[in-house]
């Protein structure tokens, strides 16, 4: 199997543009996911009445359905009811809809890890509510939550591979076109895998490192992984 390097070189700009789109969609998706996750966890943590039940339903819906169907529904389904969204908007909405619940879970696991006794001890030595959140709850919740938040970021970035199904010119679509038009199957697939590796491998390595750092800061570090 010999790769046609000239072809790979020629197709580089296409992949660069597509990777850029993927990163852009991923970035907005992750950002909105974090925001939605934060709203969800606030509603649950402070037991906001109506919002809490809505959040519950949303989390179940979002976690138990595939992104592809969510995108199809948004892009093809809603158009028929008069809500026409561009494919990029749809992709970002879809990613945020999916990611929001995952982020909420990550936040929740972090908050739950802060034991009752920590909060009570904090109160008993006379910390104010703000100090309690700032010095006791957040640092601990963060160190537990950070690995799963990071994992969710990678997950969302990977999920962007699906948005090609609703006509976003992403890496998958570029690959498919190149295979279809020039029959340069191996070259196109090679580039596809390479671009994903370049995007996600450093992130994954960074995350492993961060996880070790964060664990180190944990209270009563038992050294268990």
């Amino acid at each position, binding site marked *: 199997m010999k790769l046609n390097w000239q072809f790979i070189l020629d197709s580089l700009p296409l992949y660069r543009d597509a990777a850029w789109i993927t990163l852009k969609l991923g970035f907005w998706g992750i950002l909105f996911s974090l925001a939605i996750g934060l709203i969800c966890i606030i509603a649950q943590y402070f037991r906001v009445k109506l919002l809490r039940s809505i959040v519950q339903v949303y989390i179940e819906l979002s*976690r138990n359905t595939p992104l592809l*169907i969510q995108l199809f529904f948004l892009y093809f389904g809603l158009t*028929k009811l008069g809500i026409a969204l561009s494919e990029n908007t749809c992709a970002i909405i879809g990613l945020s809809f999916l990611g929001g619940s995952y982020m909420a879970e990550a936040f929740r696991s972090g908050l739950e890890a802060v034991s009752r006794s920590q909060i009570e001890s904090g109160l008993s030595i006379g910390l104010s509510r703000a100090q309690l959140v700032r010095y006791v709850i957040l640092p601990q919740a963060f160190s537990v939550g950070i690995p799963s938040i990071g994992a969710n970021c990678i997950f969302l970035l990977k999920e962007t591979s699906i948005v090609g199904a609703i006509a976003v010119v992403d890496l998958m679509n570029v690959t498919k076109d190149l295979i279809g038009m020039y029959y340069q199957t191996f070259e196109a697939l090679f580039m596809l*895998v390479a671009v994903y590796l370049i995007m996600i491998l450093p992130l994954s390595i960074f995350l492993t490192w961060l996880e070790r750092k964060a664990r180190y800061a944990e209270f009563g570090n038992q050294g268990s992984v």
Partner: protein
Amino acid sequence: MQSLGIRVLFNVKNIRRLLEGLMVTARIAFISILIGSLLGVVLGVIWTAKRKWIRSICRIYLEMFRIIPIFVWLFVMYFGGTTALNVDLSGETVSIIVFTLWGTAEMGDIVRGALKSLPQHQVESGKAIGLGFWELYRYILIPQAVRRMLPGAINLATRMIKTTSLVVLIGVIDVIKVGQQIIEYSRIEIPTASFWVYGFVFILYFAVCYPLSKLSRMLENKWNR
């Protein structure tokens, strides 16, 4: 006649075809979850080996699926694998192969985690009373590990079921493809068909995945507290 769009779902023929498509999806999911979990147990046991290079190979195998999106793997296998090996594989076969390989990797990680979490004295006591490798796993380790890995394994199953939605993109006639066909031919009579059909598929996936994730959470609460 927007309010009557739902009649696309009251057509017996449409529903029957959608369920036929669902059977294809279910077949792919079932076969790959079954084989994947069996091989995953084997991989998990191998993964606990003392030799470092064996563990590294297992780790790299898992990371390959963690870093490269499953959709990319489907592409690579469907376009690249078939060309490289000069075989003609249907989209369904390719999906089963990819999902099985992925399921094996993730299941292996779950089994490894469960085995690792067992106290070391279990292994040592087993060896002390003269159990061989096979008996040790068969009677001591696997029965105890099952409790710890079942919630994760069920979660993995729901993830795999959700991911089966991607097979439509490599030409498998699954429930989504059938849905698209129904939308196409009822385009004139029922313009809002896409809303209802995609909504229906959305609910179908939810109806399968929701009970599973509930079960997983229930087991987790029951066994881990």
